[in-house]
């Protein structure tokens, strides 16, 4: 489904990804773990198509298409979803308007008809209830005044509505207490399916207690230095990144 080959990418002229290779099949959940500065967020932004992240080498194909030539909105239409580490606040745009614009834009790209206001409301209420998102939250401006947990739940709601083929969860556990983490993880697990792949990017093993991955990769210095099963995450937790990556702590970013 997703084939990343020898990917190189720079940000502000600095090379962050240095030959990353990764293959993800439908139905699989892959965890990408790594220390700060290893290139985790860069990978997620490159996959989502953010400006300023320049691909200087390698390739990314998604369901046989060259992902790198697509605009961010086209990638969303193809079924790529990035759950942001820091969901963006948009004053003046209600969450409801945002969700509806997003869902209908993606539906049109998939060749499906737009949902009318009534059907949309029914759908969003059902999905929101499962994530403990109140009507009051839906009426507020996008992420404005939301707690950390509310922001992440809002990301999960968007994912549930858009039903992506590949979900990239960028540090979805950051800033969450244990209850919020559990709610978010339940939301993610509910979306696991044989057609859907997930890339779970995280610094800590904690999230993987709740979202159990099929494969775990260790990212260091812009490339994957080790891959294994879910037990690799536990090994990392025990030994720390330095021992696994063979680098001194803090040197991984260099």
């Amino acid at each position, binding site marked *: 489904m997703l084939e990343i080959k020898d990917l190189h990418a720079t940000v502000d002229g600095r090379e962050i990804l240095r030959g990353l290779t990764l293959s993800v099949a439908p139905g699989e959940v892959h965890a990408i773990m790594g220390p700060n500065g290893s290139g985790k967020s860069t990978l997620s932004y490159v996959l*989502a*198509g*953010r*400006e300023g992240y320049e691909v200087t080498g390698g390739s990314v194909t998604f369901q046989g298409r060259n992902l790198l030539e697509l*605009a*961010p*909105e086209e*990638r*969303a*239409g193809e079924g790529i979803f*990035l759950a*942001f580490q820091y*969901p*963006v*606040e*948009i*004053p*003046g*745009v209600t969450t409801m*308007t*945002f969700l509806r*614009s*997003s*869902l209908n*834009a*993606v539906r049109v*790209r998939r060749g499906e008809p737009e949902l009318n206001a009534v059907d949309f409301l029914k759908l969003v209420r059902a999905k929101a209830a499962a994530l403990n998102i109140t009507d009051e939250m839906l009426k507020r*401006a996008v992420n404005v005044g939301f707690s950390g947990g509310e922001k992440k739940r809002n990301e999960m709601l*968007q994912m549930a509505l*858009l039903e992506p083929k590949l979900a990239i969860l960028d540090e979805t556990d950051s800033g969450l207490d244990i209850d919020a983490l559990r709610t978010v993880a339940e939301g993610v697990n509910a979306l696991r399916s044989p057609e859907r792949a997930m890339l779970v990017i995280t610094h800590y093993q904690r999230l993987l207690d709740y979202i159990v991955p099929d494969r775990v990769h260790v990212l260091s210095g812009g490339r994957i230095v080790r891959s294994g099963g879910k037990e690799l995450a536990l090994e990392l937790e025990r030994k720390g990144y330095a021992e696994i990556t063979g680098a001194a702590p803090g040197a991984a970013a260099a």
Partner: protein
Amino acid sequence: MSIATPVAAAPAAPEPLTSAEERAARYAAHRARLPGAGRPWLNGLRDAAIEAFARIGFPNRRMEEWRYVDLRALGETAWRPADAGTVAAGDLPAPLLPDGVRVVLVDGRFRPDLSQGLAGTEGLTVLSLADAIAAGDPLAEQAFGPADWGRRGSLIALNTAMAGDGVVLSVADGARIEPVEVLHWTTAHADPAEIHARHAILLHERAQATVVERFAGADGAAVFANHGCHLRLAAGARLEHVRLQAEAGRVIHIGGNGVTLAAGAAYLARYVGLGAGVARIDLDAELHGERAELDLASVYLARGAQQQDLTTRVRHAVGACTSSQLVKGVVAGAARGVFQGAITVDKDAQKTEARQYSRALLLSPQAEVDAKPELRIFADDVQCAHGAAIGELDADQLFYLRARGIDEPPARALLVEAFVAEVVDRIGDAQARAMVARHVRDWLATEAAG
């Protein structure tokens, strides 16, 4: 069919007017054609006004208050006074309220035939300025307001000298008036035409009203539309004044608004500008009764080669008054937006609260915004705050929307609409708010379509 046209019977078309000197020199002939030419008080006012205009001349960019807006066309175009324009009711936009009071002026002339609900609302008097002058109605004299051109510039002086008609709205003591719509319609002219109209909105003690002014029209030759409006709010009066400027592209729109507020009066100004080629709006506010409140929320949208200039002069003459100004601008293409805001707090105006914020959004590298706050504070116990910010659309917000499948043009439109909403949402009257929101959305849709 008669072939021979009696030439002598047709009134000679007035010669076009260009320079300020020419106007002053030939003013007597123009004054003779105006309503009320025989009334000494009006002759005196008009003569003083044309003298003031001739002394100052048309605004130019060497004048401090006019440095950002290019109005050279005013003094370089051969303007003719606009003919009585022809328009059918069906050409006009639908009324704000199907059964509400609607005053229609065409090319500055009051048109009872196109208006509706002019009589029968208790506490509301609607008059044409020309009729009020002809009838010797005391409202006519009140409608002109103070002759303070020295402070407000030459265009309001020219307006005073030239205006022959306009609308006068008067709301009686304690009356509460549902929205009154005033539609200023500009017809298409074959040659450059000038319009000078003088309006007044007078609220008596504790009166409450909403007045929705709309400026719109048909495409044609260049038009110099010079609207003066005197607003007087007596003690405890409260006015929401929605002013939507959506003129056709070749109009130079001048809007000189002067408001005086007595004790406890509140003026809620909701100025929205998105039309005309060049628009210059002035708001002169005098707070001369304690606890008076001025609350301005304004937004302009400009694109192409448009220029939108809002200039405010707020004077706190007595203490314990509040003034709050929020001015937002959206500037695309090679357009220019200007906000000049002066606040004066007199020596004895203690306990004044004055706030002024301006924010502008630049949508293109060629767009330009000038913001000039000016605070003159002579009292020592006051709270004053001001801030000006100019920026572009937030890249993080734009990426977030695009990552959720929304195309870039609608994503940008959504963000601009959100930026503008802060002002639009301040419009208290629901119908007026919806109308303004519709204009903004149409503007954005055109912009998104490129």
